[in-house]
């Protein structure tokens, strides 16, 4: 058993490399936050296009559905490699997108953000769709009967209610997104998992990776508990409202 603890819980290695692993984790958090926000916005756009009524919107609806299906159907790692490998040489793409350097972050950070947002936008679109479907049709009718146009009814009446209903599943997806940021390590961005691997390779010891896992858990477990609590609160509210 000693060898087990030595391999995974060598406190000296953890202590010596704490700063390096923490730097990696900080990058993970930044990746997750930026991509999380962008995915949620992009997902809402996709869901609204997909829900838009009328014959005129048919081609756009088809496009949105295809996009969502495709991006949910291919691995995130593959998307990351596709962007990182060839986006820099696509000469028709504007420079700010080809070699982004916002907020003083390197381009590979932004390639990671792009890949995660494009992929998770598709997942979030499905979550929003469930939320939009859960708003009773009478809400739209009431809004329209008051003279609101379809976009106004969506903006003031439908979407706010839909978002309220899907906050728990959105947080769940955010936990998954945060873990998936480790895939960006494949393109030489030293996030927490890659940092741990480097130390593992140097020392023939996995304790730095364990440290990374602990850092994840410190953040993800409270989020998971928060999701549970939100769901419980929603169910309670539903039970109170249901009977007239």
């Amino acid at each position, binding site marked *: 058993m000693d060898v087990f603890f030595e391999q995974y819980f060598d406190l000296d290695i953890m202590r010596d490399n704490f700063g390096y692993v923490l730097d990696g984790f900080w990058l993970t958090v930044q990746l997750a936050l930026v991509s999380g926000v962008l995915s949620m916005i992009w997902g809402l756009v996709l869901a609204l296009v997909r829900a838009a009524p009328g014959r005129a919107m048919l081609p756009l609806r088809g496009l949105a559905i295809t996009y969502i299906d495709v991006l949910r159907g291919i691995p995130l790692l593959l998307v990351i490699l596709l962007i990182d490998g060839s986006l820099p040489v696509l000469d028709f793409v504007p420079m700010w997108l080809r070699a982004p350097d916002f907020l003083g972050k390197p381009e590979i950070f932004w390639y990671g953000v792009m890949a995660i947002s494009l992929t998770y936008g598709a997942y979030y679109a499905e979550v929003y769709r469930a939320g939009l479907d859960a708003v*009773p049709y*009478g*809400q739209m*009718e*009431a*809004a*329209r*009967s*008051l*003279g*609101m146009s379809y976009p*106004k009814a969506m903006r*003031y*009446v439908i979407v*706010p*209610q839909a978002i*309220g209903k899907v906050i728990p599943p959105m947080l769940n997806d955010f936990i998954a997104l945060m873990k998936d940021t480790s895939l960006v390590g494949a393109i030489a961005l030293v996030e927490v998992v890659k940092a741990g691997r480097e130390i593992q390779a140097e020392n023939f010891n996995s304790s730095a990776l364990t440290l990374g896992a602990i850092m994840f858990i410190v953040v993800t477990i409270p989020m998971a508990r928060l999701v549970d609590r939100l769901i419980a609160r929603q169910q309670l*509210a539903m039970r*109170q*409202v249901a009977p*007239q």
Partner: protein
Amino acid sequence: METRSQPEQTSVPAGEGPMLHLDGVHKSFGDLHVLRGIDMSVDRGNVVCVIGPSGSGKSTLLRCINMLEPPEAGRIFLEGKEITGAGKGNVDYVRRRVGMVFQQFNLFPHMTAGRNVSIAQRKVLDRPKEEADAKSRALLERVGLQDKLFEYPDRLSGGQQQRVAIARALAMDPHVMLFDEVTSALDPELVKEVLDVMRELASEGMTMVVVTHEMGFARDVADRVVFMDDGAVVETGDARQLIDNPREERTKRFLGLVLEH
């Protein structure tokens, strides 16, 4: 209650002809022919109650009038202007003049009662916040809910919610109000408070089309009653006369069933 200001409808110029006129209105859902040629007229300031068995097309009729369900054939005139046929402007024209109250209230659950009443004033009529808020307060007072301004719908009883819904529709200064079985989802003891608000509205001269199963209300308040069955108007007449002495056999049978208990 006596000190309430006169509704704005009285200041609207009388205009020519009936407020609302329907001419051979048809509506189908797939194979289901819900409205089979409805002719109907509603004069300014009149209250018309539409009665009939469930599935007779009463609710669909109201939804055609405010273009939630555009009819397939026939013509509808609102204050003399035809609202059926092509033209996106028609929907705006209708919705700015016609208020609707639903069986299931359909209040916006994420907004307080006050915001329910003010939101469309702000976002559709572009009223300044102070004006919209003042109007919301006045309307909630008018339906007896001045103390519920900041309550959310799930904290209100069904009757209170329905009165907020009436205030919300009135906030748009409609020329006609449509009521779609607005007391059917209410506990019996809450029906009266909603009907009282509607009575008062009628006495103030609001033009109203009321789909209802409340025969007492129809008899007392309505100027005219329309009896519908199977997507058609079977009988139209003076409210008391039609309810007390119906001419048609189908009307007699229906009234016999609903007045029995």
